[in-house]
């Protein structure tokens, strides 16, 4: 899964799937049919940046431990941004 990673933290495949699902549910990340370039605004990095900005985290566009930890927290299912 093309998710930019920040630090040496070893994310498992399952972690990355969770992160992608989180961004799809709350930040309108669209599925990416194989082989088709995404519009820049809909890349995983862009959505990670949106989420990091929303929660006041350091905005890197990469999945790091702090961002992933926040994704684990129990929360409301309504998206944070978008339609």
């Amino acid at each position, binding site marked *: 899964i093309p998710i930019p990673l920040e630090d040496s933290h070893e994310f498992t495949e399952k972690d990355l799937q969770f992160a992608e699902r989180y961004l799809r549910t709350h930040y309108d990340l669209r599925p990416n049919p194989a082989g088709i370039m995404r519009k820049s605004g809909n890349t995983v990095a862009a959505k990670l940046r949106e989420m990091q900005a*929303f929660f006041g985290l350091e905005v890197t566009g990469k999945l790091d431990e702090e961002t992933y930890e*926040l994704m684990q927290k*129990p*929360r*409301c*299912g309504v998206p944070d941004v978008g339609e």
Partner: protein
Amino acid sequence: YNFFPRKLKWSKMNLTYRIMNYTSDLRRNEVDRAFKKAFKVWSDVTPLNFTRIRSGVADIMISFGTKEHGDFYPFDGPSGLLAHAFPPGPDYGGDAHFDDDEVWSDDSKGYNLFLVAAHEFGHSLGLEHSRDPGALMFPIYTYTGKTGFVLPDDDVQGIQELYGKSITINSPLTCFNYSTSKILLFYAVTRNIKYVFFLSTRFFWRLHPQMVEAELVLLKSFWPELPNKIDAAYENPIKDLVFMFKGKKVWALNGYDIVEDFPKKIYEMGFPKEMKRIDAAVHVKDTGKTLFFTGNKYWSYDEEAEVMEAGYPRLIEEEFTGIGDKVDAVYERNGYLYFFNGPLQFEYSIWSQRIVRVLHTNSLFWC
């Protein structure tokens, strides 16, 4: 606070709700009460009214479900997604769904149904998620205690922008937006390099000397390890540390970090072991002494020698005549001590050793 695209809202003030089914975690009357109380959070500050109906289609249909439950936005089992709701509109509009794979409760065990419902009903009325960590509409669940829920100011401003203010006057909930309310209790104040911190319950206001507006911040978002409702705080400019007191413990903060080996017990500073708490503390730069107020007495601590001065405690009333016999909070600025006692603030001149002005506690917020 944020709104849904096109600022969706109800075009009427009288709304209906219907509870379609129940969770087995709570008794029916507990569920009814939680939802009723959750609606009252919003009707208290707006002209909105909520009426429960027991049949037919209500504006806000409430139900418990698991995984895929009919709206193509499946829940995900225990934890994770707790509930969701739809913005105002026909059909699903306004409806609120709760994940019955969670353990719902009416206290801190499991997830508090009242708190989650109040949040979801904010969506039902047109509020989107807020970035303010202290707001009810912040997307992440935080248990905020069993009693005395107060709708945070961020949410009050958001919902009132949609529906206007409540018709009742003197709503106690406006107190936090330091409007004309006369009493804001401060439990501890201190100066940290550029800011004056006003600590109260689980928030603190950061007031920059050059700014008019204070910034409201959740205490635990800066210092997660600190308890809420700090008793007292002071800054020691010599060591560049801020000390915070709660009960018999004291924490030392270096910027936003808690110094190693803290918290310590206050008796290690020289207080008698039986002392239960400190009401207020202030460091007086010119004398290098820190004054501690507890009950009707106060102590003087020599920061350089790191010992309690002999001849203390003394009676507050004897040294600081006129400020009353207890101190809620105190801080020093430009040669004046500002004593807070209930709704009043006494400006005491260290030089002339007398009170020169009496102000309202929240006058610093231009109330």
